[in-house]
C-alpha cells in the first residue's frame, strides 16, 4: 500500500485554479481527493467542482418542527396542567397561541440552522489542520490527497498551470 501525501497549491486567480482542477482530473486525481480553501465564497460551479452536500436546510426544517412542537406544548398543554381562569377567557389563550407557535417555530428553526453549521463543518475544531494563511488574503488553495509516488508529477504540473506555490501540506495549529 502506498503512502498518502497531501499537497497544497496556492493560486491567485480563479481561472488558473479552475484549469488546474480540470487538469488534475485528467492526471487521475479524483474530485473526492481535492478540496478548495478560499477566502471568499467561490461557488462549485465557478471551479467546475461537484456540488457540495449540506444538511443545513434539513436541520433547519427539523428544528422548526421541534420548535413548533415546543410551541404546541406551551400554548395548548401547559395551560391545562395548572388551569387558571383569567379575564373570562378560555384556559387556552386562543389567538395568542399563534404568537407562541410562531416565535417558538422561528426560534427552533434559527437555533438549529446555527447548530447545523457547527455540525456540518465540525465546528469548533482546534486540532491541527492543513491550511495556508494566504487564503485569508483572497487566494485560492487546492488541497490534494495523492499517493506518495505522484507527488513530483503533480507538483510540476500545478506549477506549470500557474500555481503560486505548491508545497506538501502539513497539519498545523491555526
Amino acid at each position: 500500500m502506498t503512502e498518502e501525501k497531501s499537497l497544497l497549491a496556492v493560486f491567485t486567480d480563479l481561472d488558473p485554479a479552475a484549469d488546474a482542477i480540470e487538469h488534475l482530473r485528467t492526471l487521475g486525481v479524483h474530485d473526492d481527493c481535492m478540496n478548495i480553501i478560499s477566502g471568499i465564497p467561490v461557488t462549485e460551479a465557478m471551479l467546475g467542482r461537484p456540488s457540495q452536500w449540506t444538511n443545513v436546510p434539513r436541520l433547519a426544517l427539523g428544528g422548526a418542527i421541534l420548535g413548533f412542537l415546543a410551541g404546541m406544548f406551551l400554548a395548548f398543554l401547559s395551560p391545562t396542567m395548572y388551569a387558571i381562569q383569567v379575564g373570562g377567557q378560555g384556559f387556552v389563550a386562543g389567538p395568542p397561541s399563534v404568537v407562541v407557535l410562531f416565535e417558538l417555530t422561528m426560534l427552533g428553526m434559527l437555533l438549529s440552522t446555527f447548530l447545523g453549521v457547527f455540525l456540518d463543518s465540525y465546528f469548533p475544531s482546534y486540532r491541527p489542520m492543513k491550511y495556508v494563511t494566504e487564503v485569508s488574503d483572497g487566494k485560492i488553495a487546492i488541497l490534494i490527497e495523492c499517493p506518495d509516488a505522484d507527488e513530483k508529477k503533480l507538483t510540476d504540473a500545478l506549477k506549470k498551470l500557474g500555481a503560486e506555490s505548491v508545497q506538501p501540506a502539513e497539519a498545523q495549529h491555526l
Partner: protein
Amino acid sequence: MMNKSNIPEVGANFAEGEQGKWGMVIDRDLCTGCQACVAACSMENNVAFVGEEDSGYGRSMHWIRIERFWEGEYPEVKMTSQQPVLCQQCGHAPCEPVCPPFAAVHSQAEQLNLQVYNRCVGTRYCANNCPYQVRVFNWRDYTDDRLDPALVTLKNQYNPDVTVRRRGVMEKCTFCIQRIHKAQDKAKSEGREVADGEFTTACAQACPANAITFGRVDNPESLVSQLAGQNRGSKLLEELGTLPQVTYLNGG
C-alpha cells in the same frame, strides 16, 4: 402530569346578564365622604401608610378612595355627591389576562379577582389595564420598621388574617375575602348556609350612613340584590363589558 380533575369547566365564569356571587351596592346619595371606610379598610387589610410625600405624588395605597367632584367654574362651584371607588371585582376583569406570572387570577369559587402577592413580580400591567385605577403598588418597603421606627408600635394593630405586603408587589381590594372565608367556615361548622347580613366588609361595617351594602348578588332575597334592583342603580364604565360587581345608586 395532566390531571383532568384539576380543570374546572371553562364556562364557570358568568356571562353578561348573569350575576356573580358577591356584590356591593354603594348609595352615593347617602355617602357623606367621611372617609371612615378608607380608614376601616386600611386597618382590616393592613394597608400601608406611605407618608405625606408619596401620598401627594399619587402613591397612596388605600384600597378604597372617595372621589370628589364639583360642577361649575370657581367661585360658582357646586359639590356633587361623593363616589367611593374600590375594586369592582369584574366578571371579565381586564387586569387578569395581562399578568404574565398568573398573579392576578379569577377565583372560581367566590367569583372574585384575586391578587396572589407571592407570584407578583411587579410588571404593573394589571394596574395600567384597570379602567377603574383601583390597583395600588408597593413602591417602597412601607411596612419595614427598620426604615421607620414609628412602625414598631403600628405593627401591633395588624390584622393577623391578612398578609403584610413587601415592596414591588401589586395589591387591591379583596372584598375582605378573609371575612368571607371566616363566615363560610363558621357556617359550615354549624352545618348551615351563610345568612344574609351575617357578616360584611370592613368598609360597609364602618360606614356611619349605611351607604355601603355587601352580600350575595346571586340570591334575589338578599338586601344587596334588592337594592341593586332599584332603577336608580348604575355601574361604573359598564360600556367596557367588564361586568363589575359594584352597583352605584344615585339620584334617589
